[in-house]
């Protein structure tokens, strides 16, 4: 039996399955549901994650990053918060904490390699211990915007590396204090905590 014959047989088996039109609306609805679920779980579970990360990673316990109660007559929404100081992203950082979308901490090493990322002249690069990611970014004040697409290599790794690159999609802002640099999501939740290599 030749390769061509095998392909032909598989095509004939496959053609027996009647396939309807692609359920595009259902797929989009499913994505909205997943995003909502991730958001809810992220919000509910992040407290536990931050507690865990605080224990495991002392740098996260810096008082400057702890939640402060709102002053009377003010809210915590970013819209009315006083403008945050400008932050800089420049050079190489190691990942000292990574929070999954469900709020749980994820490993920051893979195969004995520390996750790390670098920012230079509008170009971001990241390494999850297995694959490399690169792309462009714009930092305006504290708002971090990925410009275009973040492309990554596609090396297959077993077991899979931490969900580092997936989580970068959720990053929208940067914060900085004495403890390190924090990439945060739209709700101000820490997604990735970074530190300079020489600080660890």
């Amino acid at each position: 039996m030749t390769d061509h014959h095998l392909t032909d047989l598989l095509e004939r088996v496959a053609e027996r399955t009647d396939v309807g039109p692609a359920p595009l609306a259902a797929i989009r609805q499913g994505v909205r549901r997943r995003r909502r679920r991730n958001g809810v779980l992220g919000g509910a579970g992040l407290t536990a994650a931050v507690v865990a990360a605080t224990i495991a990673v002392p740098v996260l316990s810096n008082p400057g990053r702890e939640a402060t109660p709102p002053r009377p007559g003010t809210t915590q929404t970013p819209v009315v918060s006083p403008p945050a100081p400008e932050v800089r992203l420049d050079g190489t950082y190691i990942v000292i904490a990574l929070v999954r979308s469900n709020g749980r901490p994820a490993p920051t090493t893979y195969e004995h390699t520390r996750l790390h990322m670098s920012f230079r002249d509008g170009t971001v690069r990241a390494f999850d211990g297995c694959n490399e990611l690169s792309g462009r970014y714009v930092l305006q004040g504290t708002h971090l915007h990925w410009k275009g697409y973040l492309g990554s290599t596609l090396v297959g790794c077993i077991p899979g590396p931490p969900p580092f690159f997936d989580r970068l999609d959720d990053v929208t802002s940067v914060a900085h204090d004495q403890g390190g640099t924090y990439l945060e999501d739209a709700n101000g939740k820490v997604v990735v905590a970074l530190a300079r290599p020489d600080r660890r």
Partner: protein
Amino acid sequence: MDEDDFTTYVAAQWPRLVRSAVLLGCSPVEAEDVVQSALERCLLHWRRVRAASDRDAYVHRVLINTFTSARRRRWTGERPTADLSEAVAPDETSHVDDADAMERALDRLGRDQRTAVVLRYYAHLTEEQMATVLGVARGTVKSRLGRALAALAEDPALGDLRGAP
């Protein structure tokens, strides 16, 4: 832009992805569920899919992972068997065609070998792409394909096809 690109891709590839899932061992209904779930995962990170050097390989990797996860979760209580314990009706399909034989032969392959055959000979991925999709070394892909082809060559259901061009 992303949405348009995704729509175009899915409209073109949906039938083939569903049929790939069927060949991997899903029922037609389960295949549509698995592919829909895989495409939701892809759409969540579509800009990464677009940026991937090989989009089809990326989507197939998500599909295989979704299929594997679904199989881990689902336990139907059924066990595959080569022979039925008793005949409940006369066999009206004595004149099985080649596709029937192929379908049964696929059912007798192990999961890894079956996946290798489908990815190589239906999805037309290269061995290098398969290594990426399956997360194994290229040599492992070669050996799985080799064993799968040897098993198909020995399969009694495909006996009539031996020596076919």
